[in-house]
């Protein structure tokens, strides 16, 4: 995975935000008329090091029901910076998955907005990729074709190139050799690996994960958790920020740099903590246990 040649292919293929704006980055971004007028200070993308990658600003969400308005999210704000692994948690029904979908651009907030590098997110973009709790693979396509399907929006790539990228992504996710296997023949853990490969194939900067390990058995989930941090946050990966929804406290303390806790419905931010445990994290250490207890106290 850490082959410099392959890293070069991945990074050369997929535009990254580095120093000043480059032409290829421009080409990959939505044109100004697609972006709302109420975006960041200059309407252009903020460059790295200049502020939050993802910014949630005073988001409210409510639905109209027969009995009246149902508030789901109330005045939620948070910022995710470069190299941060953010966990979003709270009791069932608090709206954390909904908030993730607002960040992804799949749902619109009633009031408030979400920004990616200063630009308002109104619809899904290539820079933010999503991994689903139930994998959502297409059962009639092989693993490789599922990852290739993830590259659907890249019309500039030839089929052969897409296959190459997809093959590499599967290898990185630990599924080398399983390209021609159908999802029906894969275990839960392997399906999620395909989901991961599919999400990473586009070289996104932000990874949004909706309870990615909760549909897996404990052993598989453990194995994936151990791999996921290095897979996502290593220097050759395009990922700069991760936002993960989870209700597993141990998982959060093991993986996250920061945790945002939402209250029961209607969800608002109770606390936004920085988990300063050193990596690699030792699940049996006292500090770890203390953090777990602390987090539980906020959730209870």
């Amino acid at each position, binding site marked *: 995975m850490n082959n410099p040649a392959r890293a070069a292919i991945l990074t050369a293929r997929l535009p990254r935000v580095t120093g000043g704006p480059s032409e290829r980055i421009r080409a990959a971004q939505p044109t100004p008329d697609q972006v709302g007028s109420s975006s960041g200070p200059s309407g252009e993308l903020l460059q790295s090091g200049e502020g939050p990658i993802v910014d949630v600003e005073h988001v409210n969400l409510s639905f109209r029901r027969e009995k009246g308005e149902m508030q789901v999210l109330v005045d939620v704000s948070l910022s995710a910076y470069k190299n941060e692994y953010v966990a979003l948690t709270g009791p069932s029904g608090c709206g954390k998955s909904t908030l993730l979908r607002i960040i992804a651009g799949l749902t619109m907030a009633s009031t408030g907005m979400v920004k990616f590098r200063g630009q308002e997110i109104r*619809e899904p973009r290539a820079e933010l990729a999503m991994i689903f709790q139930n994998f959502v693979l297409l059962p009639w396509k092989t693993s490789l074709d599922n990852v290739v399907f993830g590259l659907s929006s890249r019309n500039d790539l030839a089929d052969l190139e897409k296959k190459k990228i997809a093959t590499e992504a599967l290898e990185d996710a630990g599924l080398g050799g399983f390209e021609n296997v159908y999802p029906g023949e894969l275990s839960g853990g392997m399906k999620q690996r395909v989901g991961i490969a599919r999400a990473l194939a586009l070289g996104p900067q932000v990874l949004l994960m909706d309870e990615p390990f909760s549909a897996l058995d404990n052993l598989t989930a453990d194995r994936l958790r151990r791999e996921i941090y290095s897979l996502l946050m290593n220097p050759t990966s395009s990922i700069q920020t991760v936002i993960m929804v989870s209700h597993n406290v141990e998982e959060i303390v093991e993986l996250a740099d920061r945790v945002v806790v939402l209250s029961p419905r209607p969800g608002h931010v109770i606390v936004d903590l920085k988990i300063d445990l050193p990596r690699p994290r030792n699940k049996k250490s006292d500090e770890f246990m203390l953090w777990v207890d602390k987090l539980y106290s906020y959730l209870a």
Partner: protein
Amino acid sequence: MILALIFSIIFSLAVGIIAARNHRAETVIIPLLDVLQSIPILGFFPFVIFAISGLIPGQAGYSLAVVFLIFTSMSWNIAFGVYEAVKSIPQDYIDLSFMSKSTSLQRITSLYIPASLSRIAYNTQTSWAVGLFYLVSSEIITEGATRIPVRGIGVDIITYGLAKDYTAYFYSILLLVIAVIIWQFVFLREFSLWAERYKFVEEPRAVSRDPLMKFYHWVNQKSVSKLFLLRPARGATSLTASVARYRRGLKYAILILLAVFLVFEVAATLNSARAGLAGFNLSALPSDESRVLVALATSFVRIWYVYFIVIAVAVPLGIVIALNERLYNSMVPVIEVIASVPAPILLPALVPATMIAGAYAGELTAAIVIFTGMIWYVLFNVMAGIRTLPAELFELRASLRVSTLQAWRNIYLPAIATAFVTGSITAVGAAWNTLIVAEYFVGNGTVPITQVGSGIGKVIVIATTQNDLSTLALAVLSMTALVVAFNLTVWRRVYHFVTKRYAYNR
């Protein structure tokens, strides 16, 4: 109609539950239902008339025959629904009922029946429209065959139409449509909604303030409380290898018999097509029989070319409507009502219209009638296929920013594959039944108002009116043999393949 429905449901419940819970019964009942469901019903109707009129002559006899026909048309479908529903009750619930030591009757009323209700409701909706078709067709055929005036909407409407009394024709159709609408909204919809609450999947639903719903609620509570009474527990049974072998054996036996018949027919058809209708040479078959087999082959081809037109229309239409929430909600009631209007009623209006096709008018009329008989099955199944897709699949599509064309190719079309096949199987099966009306129609006169050059439906109708029992027997039996053989060989394989590869289940 209602009588037939009630009998159907009772019969289906009995058969379905027995089949699902008793494995020996299962091995016999299910293949039998399979075959019975495939048999084109109207083909047997002439026999039913002769049989029952022999026993109970006069008006009562014919009414009974009609009820019986409609009963058969609905039962197999509903029985299958019950079977599937009871089979898919999660084992936990069954264990619970045994452990609470409830009696068989309690188990039936509080577990099996509620579990089957949503399937019964759904199948009733589709069976209802089908039943109406048969009702109208059988009224017409009965009249044609026996010259006894039968009272019924179908006959009345056709009579008005043929007499060119267009105002009466129009108004009676309107009346029928209104009756269907009322029936639909008063009964069928309530039935469906009520049955929804018996599903095993937890779905948050708005509770209705409707007094009818409150009554159902009360009934529900009464039966749930009965579940927890005491009785000695029994061990659970499991499907043994020998029972599985019985099933397969039975299937193969039927298959082989019909394959032989089919081969015979194909050979006869090819032979006669080569040698011309007169003077063909297939030993032991007089030329009468060859006419029948040629007619069968012609009808076969006819059904299939109409099928391709049907899918070209129904698949895109179904997907488009089902994807759009507002469109779906507004169109579905309309479609349901249109689908309930039986095709034969339209014939008096259709025939003058297709005159423009000149020599092909009969063929065009037949094609249109068959089309209307098939399209609803495919359309409804495709729409249901889309509606049952989980939201996350659409979220995936949006988050990957997949274009419309790509979405259709990679997501929507594969996703409906199983529903499409199910719909196709039912549609083609229904098509055979429409032939009796589509290919040769006399109405209340003696001269046919529409007919095709050659077709098995035509053969059957003419043979019935001429009391030509031997030809009739050959026609009906060969048609049945072809349909059943085709089901077992082609459809079964296709269905198996499609469910394996294309079914969306996580």
